[in-house]
């Protein structure tokens, strides 16, 4: 028999939890939902546009009746649950229905806080919380009538704006002297007030309500200072209080809200709670993003999977008033330990403030120009060290030197529909916006899947995110704090790397099984990542899974658009000989190679080879002493050099010798993404070492080591790691750096974004400041190299490895089908 799960509350948090639960375990529970309102589940955050007339109630329904039926969920609409009997595991509704549960989910949300002034129960006094409130307001809201909104916070201003749109004369009364003091500092609040006044709202600031006037119906409001104004409608929007009546009745532990732990469990292990009624680590949450995060974790535990934890949310706010751009997040007031970066342009109505502590963003307020809100929010949540970009931070992400994006191209909202956003896949703005609207896309991933925009090189990601924000307004949910590896799992890269090590998982099926993958053999995104993580964690022990390698790494050559392959042998340190060149020329002729090209990494590329010819080509290359250059792999690629002190009159050190030593030492190593190095013989830097993953620049006294450079999609100049004196130290630091990157970066993350994520200071702490740690990483690298340094070409050319890759199936004797009886 199925266990019985009852969800009290038919709102966004409760139903989201049920949705997440059904995704995980469709048949575990017999589910019953009780909702006090006579409606199906709707999107409460969109009540504001309903009030202002931009949406209808039908537009904001999230789950139709059919959804409940399809999932065998019993829905009791219009039933308020009045008591829980925890001993009998029973609940009772106000309509006398008694139901048993095995598990109970409380998602009772919150109630608007009604100030207990005389007259607060008069008809015409409403909160702003549900469809009924909106209906009441819309009935009164007629051209020219007067409304008083008590409360100048987020909710109050949205209500006031909605009523204004309906043609009412609206006065907002606020106890404080600045609007939205929970979300805004004084400067931004002043700009907001100014803008709203221009739209026609009247404000009474620092004003306290004394009484609501009227006999059978609201007629006016009187304030403590004696002022009286007339009113046909009074909206109380001074705040919300968690609805904890049931917890009180059932003696379930509560403080301001129902207290839950990191698994969203209350003090009664059979009872879980999510949403606005919950108090988690002393915090209450009233915005939708944290509720959804809670729902996900709660579902995981209701499904008895028991591995995920809710650790609280960082939240950002956007005011849902069309035409007013306002964004705030985190601690924007700051304290004695914080700095403020401020940009003000009052005549343009622009104000930006970032609160910084230890070179990390702690809070942000943006008014008038909020395009970079999601970027600042991301930097804040990821705790990114911003020291390198501190002086340009306020000018936004677009000013940080993405190659190919000029200033005029940074605001997607201003572009015409025909402007190309994604240059890789040729997708223009109109196509993306249409897809977002017509196909109900909510996330960056959705857009990538449907339009391919930003799905290739990713450099237009910020523009696509802008279009999402612009098209969906506040509905666009930022990429979640913890981004799963792929659709097969809820786990992040970091989780997976950790669990593989902690649990000593040594095969892809073991990871998929242990971590409850949604698909038994994963997908093309997660399998290569898992293969890499396992290889990195258990060198020599893990059996590489060829079928989880992308084709290039599986056959050790680069697939081309026509299905042929290119082959790039290793040219150690970019140094070659006449013999090698002669051999390459002979091979190119023998196999009729259509294109021979020098690569950017000082090597030679033979393009257009047939797959079945590869082993023979490799055999010939091996005979000339040439081995795989791994130009096809997420692996150590080239070590580019300049001629250095051997020949150059400016050279200070022997850069070619250093380069060859480095390449001989590091080749064969698999890395999260490709890894390129260069050695320059003097600071003129002819080998362009400062745009490499690991770059070495010779100076008179030794070697400068630079890390995290990139010359690709987004040009990034390296950070200086440190200076060392000897070649041995160069090798040691290089190995330690590669190993740290191998162990801690995410699969397909180049060193540049990795270093921007963790900060160069962290890398210095691990490698420069901590000699023991450096030594340890160095030894890990050496151990890993013992298993890695085998030429894969030789294995396939002469040692019989993976021959099936390079041969066709033999077509045998054809035979007439037995079932098919002849002429």
């Amino acid at each position, binding site marked *: 028999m199925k266990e019985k799960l009852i969800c009290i509350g038919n709102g966004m948090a409760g139903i989201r939890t049920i949705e997440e639960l059904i995704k995980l375990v469709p048949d575990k529970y017999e589910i019953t939902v009780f909702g006090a309102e006579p409606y199906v589940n709707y999107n409460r955050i969109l009540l504001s546009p309903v009030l202002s007339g931009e949406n209808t109630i039908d537009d904001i329904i999230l789950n139709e009746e059919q959804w409940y039926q399809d999932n065998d969920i019993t829905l009791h609409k219009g039933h308020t649950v009045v008591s829980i009997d925890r001993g009998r595991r029973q609940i009772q509704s106000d309509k006398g229905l008694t139901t048993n549960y095995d598990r109970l989910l409380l998602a009772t949300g919150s109630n608007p806080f009604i100030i207990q002034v005389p007259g607060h129960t008069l008809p015409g006094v409403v909160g702003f919380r549900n469809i009924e409130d909106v209906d009441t307001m819309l009935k009164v809201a007629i051209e020219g009538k007067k409304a008083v909104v008590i409360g100048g916070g987020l909710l109050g201003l949205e209500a006031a704006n909605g009523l204004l749109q309906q043609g009412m004369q609206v006065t907002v009364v606020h106890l404080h002297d600045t609007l939205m003091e929970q979300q805004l500092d004084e400067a931004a609040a002043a700009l907001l007030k100014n803008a709203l006044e221009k739209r026609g709202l009247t404000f009474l600031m620092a004003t306290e309500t004394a009484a609501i006037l009227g006999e059978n119906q609201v007629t006016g409001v009187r304030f403590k200072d004696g002022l009286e104004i007339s009113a046909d409608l009074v909206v109380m929007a001074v705040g919300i209080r968690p609805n904890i009546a049931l917890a009180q009745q059932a003696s379930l532990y509560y403080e301001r809200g129902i207290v839950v732990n990191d698994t969203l469990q209350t003090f009664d292990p059979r009872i879980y709670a999510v949403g606005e009624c919950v108090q988690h680590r002393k915090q209450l949450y009233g915005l939708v993003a944290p509720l959804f995060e809670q729902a996900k974790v709660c579902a995981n535990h209701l499904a008895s999977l028991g591995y995920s934890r809710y650790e609280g949310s960082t939240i950002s706010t956007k005011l849902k008033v069309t035409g007013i751009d306002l964004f705030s997040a985190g601690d924007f007031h700051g304290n004695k330990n914080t700095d403020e970066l401020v940009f003000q342009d009052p005549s343009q109505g622009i104000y930006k403030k970032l609160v910084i502590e230890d070179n990390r963003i702690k809070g942000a307020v943006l008014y008038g120009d909020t395009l970079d809100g999601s970027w600042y929010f991301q930097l804040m949540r990821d705790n990114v060290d911003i020291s390198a970009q501190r002086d340009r931070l306020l000018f936004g992400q677009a000013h940080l030197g993405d190659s190919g994006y000029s200033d005029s191209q940074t605001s997607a909202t201003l572009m015409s529909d025909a402007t190309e956003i994604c240059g890789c896949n040729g997708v223009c703005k109109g196509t993306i916006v249409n897809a977002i609207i017509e196909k109900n896309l909510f996330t960056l991933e959705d857009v990538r899947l449907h339009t391919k925009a930003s799905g290739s090189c990713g450099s237009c990601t910020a523009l696509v995110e802008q279009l999402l924000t612009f098209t969906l307004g506040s509905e666009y949910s930022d990429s979640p704090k913890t981004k799963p590896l792929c659709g097969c799992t809820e786990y992040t890269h970091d989780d997976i790397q950790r669990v593989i090590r902690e649990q000593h998982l040594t095969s892809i099926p073991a990871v998929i099984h242990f971590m409850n993958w949604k698909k038994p*053999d994963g997908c093309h995104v997660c399998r290569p990542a898992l293969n890499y993580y396992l290889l990195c964690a258990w060198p020599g022990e893990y059996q590489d899974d060829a079928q989880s390698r992308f084709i290039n790494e599986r056959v050790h050559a680069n697939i081309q658009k026509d299905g042929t392959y290119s082959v790039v042998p290793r040219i150690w340190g970019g140094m070659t000989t006449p013999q090698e060149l002669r051999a390459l020329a002979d091979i190119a002729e023998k196999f009729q190679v259509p294109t021979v090209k020098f690569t950017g990494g000082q090597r030679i590329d033979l393009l257009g080879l047939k797959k079945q010819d590869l082993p023979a080509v490799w055999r010939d290359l091996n005979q000339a002493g040439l081995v795989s250059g791994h130009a096809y792999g997420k692996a150590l690629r080239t070590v580019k050099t300049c001629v250095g002190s051997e020949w150059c009159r400016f050279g200070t050190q022997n850069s070619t010798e250093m380069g060859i030593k480095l390449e001989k030492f590091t080749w064969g190593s698999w890395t999260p993404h490709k890894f390129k190095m260069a050695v320059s013989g003097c600071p003129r830097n002819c080998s362009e070492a400062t745009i490499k993953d690991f770059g070495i620049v010779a100076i008179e006294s030794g070697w400068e080591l630079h890390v995290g450079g990139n010359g690709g999609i987004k040009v990034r100049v390296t950070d200086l790691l440190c200076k060392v004196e000897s070649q041995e130290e160069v090798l040691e630091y290089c190995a330690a750096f590669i190993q740290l990157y191998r162990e801690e970066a995410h699969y397909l993350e180049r060193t540049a974004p990795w270093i921007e994520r963790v900060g160069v200071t962290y890398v210095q702490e691990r490698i420069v400041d901590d000699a023991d740690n450096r030594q340890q990483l160095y030894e890990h690298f050496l151990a890993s190299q013992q298993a890695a340094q085998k030429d894969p070409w030789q294995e396939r050319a002469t040692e019989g490895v993976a021959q099936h890759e390079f041969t066709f199936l033999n*077509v045998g004797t054809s035979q007439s089908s037995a079932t098919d009886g002849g002429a």
Partner: protein
Amino acid sequence: MENRIHIGHRNDIPRLGSRVVQTEQGEIALFRTADDAVFAVANRCPHKNGPLSEGIVHGHTVTCPLHNLRLNLENGQAVAPDEGCVEQFTVHVDAKGQLFLTM
């Protein structure tokens, strides 16, 4: 009259892998999934003619190596939101695991 051609044994194809057979109608890719089902489709992705045989196999799906179009091997259709389809061929696996392609 249909022709049944013997093209080898199931074990000639690695699990979650594929092999190619050359025919007068062009290359045909044979896939073996984790549950040992064998599928045959034309070795040309409907998107830009990529060799599907080189893709990563997961479930009863293969992802094209060129631009990640996913193709359902059961019906030859691209997995939504992608569009397109590829010609399918019938493979018979006998009790001993021998593979026969119907042309």
